[in-house]
């Protein structure tokens, strides 16, 4: 069961995509991704002299024509990819509800999961603060993943760091981890969250999902008492134009710092707006990070 945004057209578009990693990983079985193993994959690696018993189809006749010696091509072994999707399901992703940040983050994670499953790779989703799924394979697993996410409800007191650790621990083979959150938190907290994933030597990607209210808080209001959705902290504000501009600058600054932070840790970064089209994000935004192609 998938959200309504997953139209057949979108699904067909997703089937054309493939999750990519910047590094080669050791998989558990033959899959569609280059692995460190050399063998009978389809990706040319280098030449070696013909030995009795080699498949004559692998003889490189162009080299024979030049050297009149028989050489066979060596190919990289293609293995399956383990993908871990970490989804921030804390209260901030649900506040305000009309921003639909959670819905976008959920859809992105399902889209990536679908792409992964269609490539015969395995995927597990951990909605931090809500639920986690087992490692799934096969295209049909997408429905299970969709159902699980649709039923996900955030818990009030969620220890995100512990849940990240737990999710990372379930990764038996190194692979890719995609962290979807609004990342409206201090950088040191973000570092804490990524640390277990980095320790696992995963190929990390951070997708920041922001809502309209994150960009322009309290539209139309001249004053308000804002309440943090997770801590309950209250801040009394007068929202005039100058204050809004100042906030915008601070948000840009925070995101810049976030990008730098992530870049320093070789974590890919993508920014997705919750009010954008899912297809645009998958087809245009994510490919720019190299996550999908």
């Amino acid at each position: 069961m998938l959200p309504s945004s997953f139209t057949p057209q979108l699904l067909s578009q997703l089937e054309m995509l493939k999750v990519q990693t910047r590094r080669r990983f050791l998989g558990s079985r033959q899959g569609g991704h280059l692995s460190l193993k050399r063998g009978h994959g389809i990706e040319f690696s280098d030449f070696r002299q013909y030995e009795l018993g080699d498949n004559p189809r692998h003889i490189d006749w162009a080299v024979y024509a030049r050297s009149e010696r028989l050489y066979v091509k060596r190919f990289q072994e293609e293995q399956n990819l383990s993908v871990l999707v970490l989804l921030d399901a804390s209260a901030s992703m649900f506040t305000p509800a009309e921003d639909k940040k959670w819905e976008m983050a959920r859809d992105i994670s399902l889209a990536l999961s679908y792409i992964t499953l269609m490539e015969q790779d395995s995927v597990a989703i951990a909605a931090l603060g809500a639920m986690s799924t087992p490692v799934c394979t096969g295209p049909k697993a997408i429905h299970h993943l969709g159902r699980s996410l649709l039923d996900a409800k955030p818990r009030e007191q969620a220890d995100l760091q512990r849940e990240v650790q737990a999710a990372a621990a379930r990764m038996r083979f190194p692979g890719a981890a995609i962290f979807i959150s609004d990342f409206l938190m201090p950088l040191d907290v973000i570092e804490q969250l990524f640390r277990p994933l980095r320790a696992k030597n995963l190929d990390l990607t951070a997708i920041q999902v922001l809502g309209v209210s994150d960009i322009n808080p309290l539209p139309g209001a001249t004053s308000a008492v804002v309440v943090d959705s997770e801590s309950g902290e209250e801040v009394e504000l007068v929202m005039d134009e100058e204050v809004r501009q100042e906030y915008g600058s601070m948000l840009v600054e925070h995101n810049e710092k976030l990008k730098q932070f992530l870049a320093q840790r070789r974590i890919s970064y993508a920014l997705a707006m919750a009010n954008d089209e899912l297809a645009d994000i998958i087809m245009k935004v994510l490919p720019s990070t190299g996550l999908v192609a």
Partner: protein
Amino acid sequence: MISIFGSTLGFMSPGVLWLFPLLLGGLFYVYRRKGRAPRVAVASVMLLRALKRSVVARQKFVPPLRFFFELLLLSLLLLAAAGLFRKGAENHIAILIDNSLSMGTLDFATRQGDSFFKTALDDARRTVRYLSSSTLIDLYVTSPQLRRLGEGNLGSSAALAELDAIELAYAADNLQSALQTLSNDSHYESIEVLTDHLLRGSSDAAVDAQKDARFRFPLVRPKNKDLAFQNVAISSVSGRATSADQGAGVIRAAVSAFVLKEADVTLTLEGLRTDSNGWKTLPLDQKKARIRGGDTVTLQFEHVPFSYQGFKLRLQPDRDAATLDAIKEDNEAWFALGTSHTSLAVISDFPPQKLGLDKIRTAKFRQASLAEGAALLSEQSNDAALIFHRTVPSRLPDKSTLFILPPSGNGLFPAAPLVPSSSVTRWSSAHPIISYLNLPGLQLKSFSPLTLLPWTEELVSTTNGAAIIAGEYHGKRYAVIGFELFPYEGKNTPLLSILTLNLLKWLTDAGVGGDSIDANSVVPLDAGVREVRYVNGEELPLIKRGTATAVNVPRPGLVQIQGSSTDTSFRSINFSNGTESNSLQVNTFMIPARPPKAEETNESQGLVHLLCTGVFFLLLADLLILLRLVRLPTRLTGVRNG
């Protein structure tokens, strides 16, 4: 009660007004809460808290116009609930001053000798001075009867003038009745009562709750129970002539001692006489007495020369006057022989002067004739009694009558023809007519024996028959003398003179020795009286009552009643009241029950309607504003409310 723009407003349930602070506070709280910036949940305040100007959104609370709109609406409802009503145009108070004799009590213990009356007047003046200029004042006195002073409602200055003119009355009070009368007048918002009576407490809470709360009782008499006000007083005076020519007599006075133990007193008798130089007062005699507390003793002055027009008695304690004599006004009494209303008609061929009757100063005699007809014999005539000298009317008069030597064969009192000298054989010594008579000395040269009638008795019998008979018939007294009584020659014929005086006294039942008139009574006067004045010169106005004339005598004293130039008589005016003079006794009173507030209810209903109408239109306006048919400015500053 509050006064606004000349109107006095009151509340049926003023306790409801205590809700107003609650109302105001509640409305203020609601608007303050509404005026607070809204609370908005955001994903994270990480960046928001770092904003440089996290100004407190709650600015100084400036209520919008709607606040005052709703405050006005709720205030009107509250006033209606409190039963706002409008009283009369101005405040209206009553001040009742007890001016009975007991208020003359002098307080040397706590007020340097000021009387209760002075204390009361001072207090009343203070009250009047502190009242607002729009207050209407009604002044009342209790004695001799409840009376309102002045014309109409008084302002402050008029009330003060009336207070200056109030005098102590020689009269008792009927305070409880006066309180009830004032209580029944619902126009008064406050009734101040100044009296030496003390308020009687009640142990019944239900009764206390019903009392008229308008009454105020500033303390006039000290409440100290150990404080005793003692007093001596002349409680009565009387006298009578003891000599045949009324030239001398006795005067008696009863003196009461309202003291704790005993009092030594001196009673002084003074004679008043007038001559060309005016009135003179001459001391005649003194009597001393020691009177135990609570007792009354009678002191008698003997051989008092009755040549004076009147007499004055003065009482004073021999010592400790300040302690033993708290009320001075009851220390004087007056006595006079004159009985101006004791007038007798003499039906005779001879004028009263010829009959020597002008020598009798205690009565007036006029010559009358049978030609006056039925009016002469009527009970309604002004004559105290009739004297038929040697004649009889056609019927028995409806008035006490003396028949002297009625003609023989008359139809009223059969009398035999004159007989020569007879000796008195028997007499009724107990009868008042015969008192003081030495009848064996009576020599009758000729008399007409009388025939007894069934209702008469024989007072003097002779060897030849009844000489004097008398009796009462239908409440009237009749005496018949079978011999010539006149001319009256006083001491020259003492026996006949005394007989004559006894007869007159018995017939008129008047104090031949003089009777006293109560102060504050209206005294009927004979026709022809021109002037009545006290011997001190104060003239009393004559009161016309139809064809009759009367005079009010407000205080004790000796009054001179002047008829024609030679017709002058004197009357004594006295006041004696044991309750008023008994300063030891503390009289109490109770506050009357609260009267119904019918008029206030009517007025309050009028205002409640007004208030409800105002509320209705305010609610209508509120609805129009709500439907945005009418716009009001919603903010006074940039603060967003709600």
